[in-house]
């Protein structure tokens, strides 16, 4: 199975760490060496968040070198631009179609990004776009957005869907499990068309 570097970025509170944890457990269940590295602490308070997952027969560095991510998963659109330097030439992008204005913009301290659509289109012409929040809201639980993204992400990784589902069962407790499995399936369906 091929080696892969996945960077997951977004905003504190979006469920990035849970999604990356499920990805890492899936890779481990598939028998690969895996490293999942995340930065939290002050980032919990609405700041920019990053988690990186690497899997292969043998993984050394927990950090993905700039320009070496095979896949960039962005839970938010401004963050997709902020972390552009992580992606390798020819790498894939999974983009959650959601704007969250930083407080610096919403409070008027800094200008927003007027040409965000154009900049994203120029940087990521082949991006796989998922309506994570809308799909999760339609399913009745906006908080399951991260599992919708996990579902979309699963179509870009070499793992069987059953292995993904085992990892989700391992990680998510009883009463929330069914909702999250439905969100995961909806995310898969959304990007497979």
């Amino acid at each position, binding site marked *: 199975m091929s080696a892969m570097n996945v960077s997951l970025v977004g905003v504190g509170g979006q469920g990035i760490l849970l999604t990356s944890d499920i990805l890492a457990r899936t890779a481990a269940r598939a028998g690969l060496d895996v490293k999942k590295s995340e930065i939290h602490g002050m980032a919990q308070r609405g700041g920019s968040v990053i988690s990186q997952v690497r899997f292969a027969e043998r993984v050394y*560095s927990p950090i993905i070198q700039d320009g070496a991510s095979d896949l960039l998963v962005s839970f938010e659109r401004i963050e997709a631009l902020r972390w552009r330097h992580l992606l390798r030439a020819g790498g894939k992008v999974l983009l959650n179609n959601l704007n969250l204005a930083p407080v610096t913009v919403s409070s008027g301290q*800094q200008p927003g990004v007027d040409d965000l659509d154009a900049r994203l289109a120029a940087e990521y012409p082949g991006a796989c776009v998922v309506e994570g929040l809308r799909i999760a809201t339609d399913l009745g639980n906006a908080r399951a957005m991260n599992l919708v993204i996990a579902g979309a992400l699963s179509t870009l990784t070499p793992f069987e869907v059953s292995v993904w589902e085992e990892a989700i069962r391992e990680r998510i407790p009883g009463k929330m499990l069914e909702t999250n499995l439905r969100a995961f399936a909806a995310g898969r369906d959304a990007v497979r068309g």
Partner: protein
Amino acid sequence: MSKKVLLSANEAVAWAACKAGCSVASAYPGTPSTEILENVAKFKETIYCEWAVNEKVGMEVAIGASIAGVRALTAMKHVGLNVAMDPLMTYTYVGANGGLVVVTADDPGMHSSQNEQDSRNLVRFARAPLFEPADSQETFDMIQEAFEVSETYRVPAFVRLTTRTSHTSTVVDVGDDFGPRQVEGKGYVKDIRRYIPVPMFARPHRLQAQERTEQLRAYGCGTRFNREEPGDRRLGIVTSGVTYQYVKEVFPEFAVLKLGFTNPLPAELIKRFAASVERLLVIEELDPFLEEQIRALGLKVVEHKTELNMLEMNPLRLTALRQELLGDVALPEVRRADAGLPTRPPVLCAGCSHRGVFYTLAKLGATVTGDIGCYTLGAFPPLSAMDTTICMGACIGNAYGMEKAGHKGRLCAVIGDSTFFHSGLTGILNVIYNGGRTTTVVLDNRITGMTGHQENPGSGKTLCGDPAPATDIAEVARAMGFKRVVTVPAYDLAALEQVLAEELDAPEPSVVIAGAPCRIAAKLWNLATYGVDAEKCKACGACFKLGCPAITRGEAAAGGKRFKCVIDPVQCSGCNLCIQTCKFGAISKIR
């Protein structure tokens, strides 16, 4: 047979402590070390564990357990080790009875810290043995070994993690025999020559510490945690900790001396390795801890211009080093797209009970000495209501010192409840004893917030969730002799302004407790939702001064110079502050 689990190094510490038969664990939370004790609590059936009020007490509790003859663990972030140094420096003389393992988690790159100290220097200073794991498996193995070393050599043993190892999950084989181990305690035997280091007893300890260092040096030359990996001997690389992983990534073909046990320096091992390679290169994160000692052995080390001795190591920096030394790699092509993007700094949560205090202190024009916690965020615009932050508890001494230096104008110290219990008690006692007039504002949200909501002496619960007496800060202040002790509701701006103005201007010292539970920890983030009547909103901007992430810019007014406000119903927690800032009655409760 094996049992494999995906664990962060912090989790691996807890699993290893369980397997090693650790009996007592005590620590104060601090990023990146916090999850260690949270995970030890999962093994509470066999390990007594607790949140200590600070790292010094945590160290003292662990030392006490060690003296009583059982295996004990304490853990802290790098700056926490500074707090714990006093008991440590003497216990390394006295020597451990039951195994004592100290975990210190450094924060290269200062992801969540105020400085970047390399704790290895302090471990050397304390003459203690030091393990530096490179991943979770090594953490699991080294913690168990550290208990053995601590008992064999009668000395507290250190395991140094970093943010990267603490917060990276890797596959760990915990063994098919994983489970709690019962270790026979060594028991306590009264021995004042050992445990009471008055000068006449301390001098022999000093000599013993010297002998022990040489014994540990020999151990370091034989341990499996220091190993040579074969490769091209035109360049030999000495490395330690997580940096090993980056070396294997960027210099895969060269011989490596991987050091997992770095203090005392395994000098003979390094000399042998140096003699077997053409050029010797030392690669380590933060200070040149190994490199300076290796040079002092008289060995020649490759010199280079690539800066590696500050901020977090990563493969890219080593690629730059390889380019400089060997010229056979190119830096990867990196495309950036972040030009002109707005920053996304962390902010006080919507509904945070600290917000009203900072809003009011800004309004009063006060100089504010601050402290370590979520509330440090009160320093940033638009609140901009903090002037200094030095270390845990420093705000009180700092404010008092500024007062004694003749500072003009309103002045106060602001400190959170957990920080107050950690290091603020002695600060206010100093104020009252020396006749100061400093006002200390305690932001009492009944939780240790920034590190992820840990219990503390004010929260009424222990680490394991058992009920505990909730210490009343007002009573503590009165008992120390404060006559002016005022408790004020944290969401009442008029009351805050009246109380803070009065106390800051008063000629006597005072303690103000501005309390309300943390909205997140107490699950109060959805109490109510407020909305804005766009007709009534005059775009005056008063509510924006709260810096609430739920209050966002709406339609432009006054030719685009000002903006009406909109409240994000998803983020609004109904704290009621914004209503109080609106003179036009434009904000109201909608749910």
